């Protein structure tokens, strides 16, 4: 399906004490089913706002947002979100956090046993069976983020939305999780929209990179197709000229064409 997620002339403004702030203007974007799209831009460019509009957590002020041919009306489990700061409930174990989502999505149709199996499967997908009964405060930041990803994937969403999923992690953990994400996406074939400000991450993971201009009234500046073959390997890519071409295209956009004045 070629027009799985569709944003048409999206505009979003926020009414603040200092008056109206236009965050997004004329945002047009279509995402194919099974595609991995990254939104990249300087901070404050409204990339998270775009993601939240697809998630349904924010309503566009103007324009149309469609998913699977239907207008997006509020959030829902078919558009699962991996939040920037994991957002696990601290009083539930890793297992409990995932089960909460699984129960909500599949609880009406499936037996307790099947739900438990789905939960275990999700934990296994991110390699966290050993942390099954731990609470979020007992595990590392990277592990929490993995549980967040497992929770989102366990919902079998039509679209997986990730808001800077690895932003709060140290470089090594981030690289590990990116590699895992590459494998998971290849295995599940999910449609993914990811907000990031990490150029390497965007190139490594994406089929297309949507580069956004600086706000206010930010919009889609350029879209870069990343035609690198999959499965992708971090080490092999390091010496691949095509990889570097993609990388410099994004860097060029961010630091030449739309350089942000130092605040």
């Amino acid at each position, binding site marked *: 399906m070629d027009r799985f997620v569709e944003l048409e002339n999206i505009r979003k403004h926020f009414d603040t004490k200092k008056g109206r702030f236009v965050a997004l203007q004329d945002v047009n974007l279509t995402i194919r089913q099974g595609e991995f799209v990254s939104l990249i831009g300087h901070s404050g460019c409204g990339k998270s706002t775009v993601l939240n509009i697809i*998630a*349904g*957590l924010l309503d566009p002020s103007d324009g149309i947002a469609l998913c699977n041919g239907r207008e997006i009306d*509020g*959030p*829902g*489990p078919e*558009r*699962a*979100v991996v*939040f920037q*700061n994991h*957002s696990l*409930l*601290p*009083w*539930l174990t890793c297992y409990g956090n995932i089960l*909460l*989502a699984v129960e*909500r*999505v599949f609880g009406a149709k499936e037996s307790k046993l099947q739900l438990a199996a789905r939960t275990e499967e999700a934990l296994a997908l991110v390699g966290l069976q050993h942390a099954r009964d731990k*609470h*979020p*405060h*007992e595990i590392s930041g990277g592990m929490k983020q993995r549980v967040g990803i497992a929770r989102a994937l366990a*919902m079998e969403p039509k679209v997986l939305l990730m808001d800077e999923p690895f932003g709060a992690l140290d470089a090594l953990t981030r690289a590990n999780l990116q590699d895992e994400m590459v494998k998971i996406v290849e295995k599940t074939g999910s449609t993914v929209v990811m907000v990031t400000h990490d150029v390497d991450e965007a190139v490594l993971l994406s089929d297309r990179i949507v580069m956004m201009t600086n706000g206010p009234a930010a919009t889609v500046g350029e879209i870069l197709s990343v035609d690198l073959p999959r499965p992708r390997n971090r080490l092999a890519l390091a010496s691949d000229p095509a990889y570097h071409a993609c990388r410099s295209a994004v860097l060029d956009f961010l630091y030449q064409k739309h350089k942000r004045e130092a605040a």
Partner: protein
Amino acid sequence: MTVAKPVAANMPLPRRRKPVSPVARLAATPVLAPVVPLLRAVVPPLLGLLAFLLLWTLVSQLSRGSLPGPVSTWASARELFADPFYQNGPNDQGIGWNILMSLGRVGMGFGMAALVGIPLGFLIGRFDFLARMTAPVISLLRPVSPLAWLPIGLLVFKAASPASIWVIFISSIWPMILNTAAGVRAVPQDYLNVARVLRLSEWKVFTVILLPATLPHMLTGVRLAVGTAWLVIVAAEMLTGGVGLGFWVWDEWNNLNVEHILIAIFVVGLVGLLLEQALVWLARKASFGQEN
């Protein structure tokens, strides 16, 4: 996050000697090493108590016996606690009964305040309209001394014991309402976004997110409420009479038995401390590693 300074590893240590405290010197001897943390924990409070006893003795000496010293108070306390549960008529009962009666009243008033205050706090925290609606009344009534409510209680209930329970109720309801409401308002938006993405039912939102997220705040309210309730009960019972610590204090004042008054002060303090500690412990259990 603590990061060890890499400098210390390969640089010569400064020559200047720091003065070594006696405790640190003790810690250096291997046999005593495990005892040191214990000493550190126990010695300062013991010294504090000792200083207090000394001061007390001094004041009692200076007062030429009108204020009993620690020794005579201790003797009197041993006598009193030898038979804590005797009953010689309605106005002369053992210290145990007095404590239990006071605790019972606090429990009743406090329990009812929790039953009313916590749900009310949830509603006020969840619905802004309700918060604005109740704000003027709560702000007006909250600073009123709980004892001012005693005559109303006596008027309505026509009996001493329910009137003091009423006073406890009114004094402990405010912290529970306000802290629960603040707790509900402080539930992180992230958790609520999770609920929105999952489209959880209102009931599930309450049981899985609001209630556990609010629990630490709620328990703070409960702790403050118990503290106030225990402060107020002594005063209320002084005014109403019957059996209870407050009444006992007043009775012993009429008997000019100052030792017993001092004992009552210690008992009130000790019970208050235990209540507080129990709730602090409970709050820690309920915090799930969240900062509170």
